């Protein structure tokens, strides 16, 4: 079966910085409909997307948190973040929008190796 290919989507942008985040989440939803198993890695500034209490309406930007919360309904439940990104921005004790697994620096490369396709917008 072709559809056994696994897909990793890497997000690297903070909230409201261009359409990359939205476009990546749309790929996640689109691919899961085709039964492609999808994982998400929130790398670098992308951890900021996962903060609670964002008020996108005060700057009239699109709020992605409903889309993030909808991932679960599409059976997209594998979310990853890096320990060093949480440390850099002092977010270790923060409650995030998604339930993420934390990777150390040294786990990153081995983690990425297991996937068949990586899209990194």
């Amino acid at each position, binding site marked *: 079966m072709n559809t056994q290919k696994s897909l990793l989507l890497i997000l690297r942008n903070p909230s409201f*910085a261009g359409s990359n985040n939205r476009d990546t989440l749309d790929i996640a939803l689109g691919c899961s409909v085709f039964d492609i198993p999808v994982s998400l890695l929130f790398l670098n500034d992308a951890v900021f997307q996962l903060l609670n209490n964002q008020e996108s309406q005060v700057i009239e930007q699109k709020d992605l948190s409903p889309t993030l919360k909808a991932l679960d309904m599409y059976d997209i439940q594998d979310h990853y973040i890096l320990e060093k990104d949480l440390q850099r921005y002092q977010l270790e004790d923060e409650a995030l929008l998604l339930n993420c697994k934390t990777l150390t620096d040294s786990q990153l490369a081995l983690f990425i190796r297991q996937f068949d396709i990586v899209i990194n917008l």
Partner: protein
Amino acid sequence: MPTTTKTTLHIINKTTTNARLYQDCCDSMLEGDELLLIESAVYAGCEQNFHSAIPTSFPIYALEVDVAARGLTDKLNKEIQLIDDNQFVNLCCIHHKSISWF
């Protein structure tokens, strides 16, 4: 107008992941200049190593709505002064010119 009064408002709108942008911006600052963080730059205010991420000793402001939009109101370093849009316009009036770093 004497050169010494021609101060600059530096406006930056990216995260400190763009370290060289912050370096270039801060290297361009002189006594009297001020730095305003807008859009994604407000995240810089939650850096663990705040002073190495924004290498300047001059005054730093952040745009209040951009901080609120990103859920950072309680997380920002206390050395950063929050300002509203009116104060942003006012800073542009006070300084002789502005430079946008993006």
